[in-house]
């Protein structure tokens, strides 16, 4: 039931190979046209691809985390978040605890990164952290952890690199064709009129279409992985409603994530660029429409992959999202009774306070709680030894 998910990667691998073929064709055409030598073009295309791949493989996670301004936390900084991640780590059978990051941003989103299960990170925005209750947080983290467990992170990073290479080559290639290509060819000794024009037209059409095809393939892979991560999250938590209700909150928010860009979009739990009230058209989005993901989760009769697949087919009136090999005939009931601890559940105001405490601490501010209830945030460069509470006038020793 757990490893079999890998068999599903066959389809993704086939699609990825499709993108690789596109890259090879682009290199071939460019080489043929500019250097009269297909091998040279292939060489350039592969070189660009290898360099970008190496960067993505070794530095991808730090670039992504750095760009989003994520801050790493420990168990003491935010016990609830740490615990929920550890719970999902246990439920998924991951061997190593992923690193946990908080992004100081009111937008609601989360992502997973890292090239393999032993070097993985989960990041969540402070906005989402304070919006979600424990069950919802569990659903979201379950989704992210399953991206790690299913090795989607590396797959999507590598596909992203392929896409990027194709886009870069096609962009420069088509510009050269337009502005200088035709001229430089005219002077060459071979200059055979009609054949050349045909090559030019074919090359142009191809250079325009290739990035579009590559993008569509990329989106197809990405959406598939999102459905799978939803199914896995439901299986790990045994509680699809948690993720469904979290997605509902995500759908209702209008804030766009400041630090996301087109390249990093598929990493997030929901598309960071979606427009309000618009269920993104099916082919041109990295994520399936949220409303649809919610409907599938709510239609699940149990928590197994089979139940998710049936729910998917009900919502779509056909099709299948999970390959037959993963559909072991196991009955997995949904958790009906909430686990212990309603007594300790925080409400949204308490969660907001808790999160803001963490964010101040991560920025090296120290916090002094005055007897009057006010919280004094002392900046790291504060030099005086005493501070006066602006609310009630009591003086406090700094450290």
């Amino acid at each position: 039931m757990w490893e079999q998910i890998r068999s599903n990667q066959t389809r993704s691998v086939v699609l990825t190979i499709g993108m690789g073929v596109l890259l090879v064709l682009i290199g071939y055409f460019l080489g043929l046209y500019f250097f009269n030598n297909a091998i040279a073009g292939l060489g350039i295309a592969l070189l660009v691809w290898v360099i970008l791949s190496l960067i993505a493989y070794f530095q991808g996670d730090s670039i992504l985390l750095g760009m989003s301004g994520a801050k790493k936390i420990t168990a003491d900084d935010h016990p609830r978040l740490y615990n929920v991640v550890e719970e999902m780590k246990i439920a998924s059978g991951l061997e190593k605890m992923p690193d946990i990051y908080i992004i100081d941003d009111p937008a609601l989103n989360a992502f997973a990164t890292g090239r393999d299960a032993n070097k993985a990170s989960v990041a969540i925005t402070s906005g989402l952290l304070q919006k979600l209750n424990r069950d919802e947080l569990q659903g979201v983290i379950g989704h992210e952890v399953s991206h790690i467990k299913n090795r989607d992170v590396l797959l999507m990073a590598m596909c992203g690199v392929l896409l990027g290479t194709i886009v870069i080559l096609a962009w420069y290639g088509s510009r050269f064709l337009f502005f200088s290509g035709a001229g430089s060819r005219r002077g060459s000794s071979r200059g055979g009129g009609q054949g050349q024009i045909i090559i030019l037209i074919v090359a142009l059409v191809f250079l325009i279409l290739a990035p579009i095809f590559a993008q569509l393939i990329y989106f197809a892979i990405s959406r598939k992985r999102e459905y799978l991560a939803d199914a896995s999250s439901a299986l790990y938590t045994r509680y699809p409603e948690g993720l469904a209700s979290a997605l509902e909150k995500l759908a209702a928010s209008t804030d766009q994530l400041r630090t996301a860009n087109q390249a990093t979009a598929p990493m997030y739990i929901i598309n960071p660029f979606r427009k309000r009230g618009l269920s993104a058209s099916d082919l041109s989005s990295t994520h399936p429409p949220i409303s649809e993901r919610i409907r599938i989760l709510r239609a699940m009769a149990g928590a197994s992959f089979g139940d998710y697949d049936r729910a998917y087919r009900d919502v779509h009136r056909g099709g299948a999202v999970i390959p037959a090999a993963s559909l072991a005939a196991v009955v997995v009931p949904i958790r009906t009774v909430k686990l212990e601890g309603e007594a300790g559940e925080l409400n949204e105001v308490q969660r907001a306070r808790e999160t803001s405490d963490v964010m101040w601490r991560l920025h090296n501010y120290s916090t002094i709680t005055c007897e009057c209830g006010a919280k004094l945030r002392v900046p790291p460069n504060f030099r005086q030894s005493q501070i006066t509470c602006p609310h009630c006038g009591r003086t406090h020793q700094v450290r």
Partner: protein
Amino acid sequence: MPTAAWVVIGIVVVLAIILWVLYNGLVRLRNQVKNAWAQIDVQLKRRHDLIPNLVETTKGYMKYERETLEAVTKARTVAQQASSAGAAERAKAEGELSSALSRLLAVVERYPDLKANQDFLALMEQLTSTENKIAFSRQFYNDSVLKYNNQTQMVPSNIVASMFGFKTGEFFEVTVAAEREAPKVSFP
């Protein structure tokens, strides 16, 4: 060498490879079961460690709940003693502890002062999470045992399993009735 000899060698090599793959698969699953069991063990011990703290923190607030608190302490002692026993007996003792705890947590609802206490809230988070981790590690353990048992019983890996003495694993089932039942609160 005659063709027949090559065919025999080929068959032997293929059989050896199949044996090798099946054997390694079984070992991997058995190790996964062992690791999953170790994880349950860690979490159960963690819960045992949290309880004295919980009883200490709540004692001051809950003067009239001595019985509930004593039941928790007693269930913890029993569960600790059962920790060297087999899965079935252990699951029973831990199930008792779970229900004693849920009775205590139901009673907490009546003490708003206690619920506002910061130490208590932090403790509750740890307890909640430990309960969840126990549930999730049990879930993963049982899934692993199911998969391992299937491998040891299904053709063709069952042949390898009986050749090398792979025994089926034991499920960790907490008495469902005790866990699922809503905690009964008796008002004095």
